[in-house]
């Protein structure tokens, strides 16, 4: 969420660095795993923004993860995890 960009967010980030804790654990950051060019898993997501066969956009605490490709489908979707299957051409991370 937006609150993470404030002063507390930066302190938490520093703390995570100091104790070498994975950032997604402490900071509610998304964890994105790409398997070859056929599957992309986003953990800690906040829902889908757009879903077509050519493009899937997923909301996360750090903005949107946009995946472009061919024949995209959502293999599995739960509260914590979303798996996108298909031929992936491009991934964009942004606000």
């Amino acid at each position, binding site marked *: 969420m937006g609150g993470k960009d404030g002063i507390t967010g930066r302190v938490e980030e520093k703390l995570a660095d100091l104790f070498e804790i994975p950032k997604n654990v402490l900071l509610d950051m998304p964890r994105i795993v790409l398997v070859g060019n056929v599957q992309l898993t986003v953990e800690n997501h906040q*829902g*889908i*923004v*757009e879903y077509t066969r050519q493009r899937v956009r997923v909301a996360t605490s750090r903005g949107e993860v946009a995946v472009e490709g061919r024949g995209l*489908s959502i293999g*599995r979707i739960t509260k914590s995890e979303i798996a996108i299957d298909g031929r992936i051409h491009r991934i964009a991370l942004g606000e």
Partner: protein
Amino acid sequence: MALADLWSYFKGYVIIAVKGRTLEKFVNTALARGIDLWDISRVDDRSLVARAYLHDLPSLGRILRETDCRGRIEEKVGVPFLVRRLARRKGLVAGAILFSVALYVLSSFVWFVDVSGVERTKPEAVLELAARHGLRPGVLKRSIDPGKVARSILAEFPDLAWAAVHVRGTMVNIEVVEKTLPDMSPGVVDVVAAENALVTNIIVLSGEPLVSEGDTVTKGQVLIAGLILWSQDQDGESKTVEVVNARGIVLARVWRTHSEKCRLVKEIVTETGRVARTRRFAVGGLTFVVGPKAPPFADYEEDERSYAVPLGGWSGYSIGLDVTTYREVIRRAEVVDRDEVLAEARERARRALEARLPRGARVLDEREDVRYSQGGVLTLTMTIETTEDIARERRQEREIERPDRS
């Protein structure tokens, strides 16, 4: 993932098609309510297909209404639906249960009883005895005690050495072993020659040897004779008789020969593919011939087939058809490789001879004689010399007579 698939199959799931403008909202709302969706694929920009658990269907309906989407169930998959379908077909389920019960009930009876291992004893006698002890076709398997039946069979048949009862499914097998009784028939045992041979070594264990080393014997000749001894007491009265059966080992040389004939010229017949047929129709006393009267080829093979249909039983006439087929052939004589033929003949002869050798025979020598005769025929005669035990015990009915007392 296969395990997860199996799990969802057990829980039952539906494939739903969702139509609407706000499909992303639908997915997100479902997600927020904790409804699992999977294999979501977009069909076009207004619709998607997804899978969801059966138990989530009511809440999914609510979400569809809230998000202004329409849903339709495309397919129902899984065990709950299977059960529902079966519940509707009561006859089928009842039949399946009836079948299982019938199978169980029928398999708890003994259907067949058989006896194995009998040679002298009558199997019927064993079966009858088993029946008296409660083992017969039609009884419950639980009611029989295999050990007890086996013990009573053994107890009532004196010439059985061992008996066992095996229950295999609906079949019961009574396995018995008969006692091997000593041969008590009258007469005396002689040792005779099994083959024509030259005796090289004779070891007499009992009896009186009639041949010595170096003798030539013929098949069936007595080598060691059994004895009948009379013992007399003081009065001179002969009282007891003792039979000495002949036993011994007679090693001898045996020659066995075998001849193999084979041709050195092989005729190869090749069909050229040209065929001519002559058909003869016979109706009553008349004959019509269709086709060549004589074979049109220089060299040919022919075969003839006849068909006849009787024309009414009273007339004695019939319609007949004879078809003679001539096939043109080319004959060619081919000289076969002599060494190859010889090697084959030798192999065949050796195999034939080895099949005739008794166990324990030791081969001393192997000779062969090859003769060529007219017409390209080769004759191979093989002789093998062995040393073997030619002693065979044979019981001779012999009058046990009182010896002359002179």
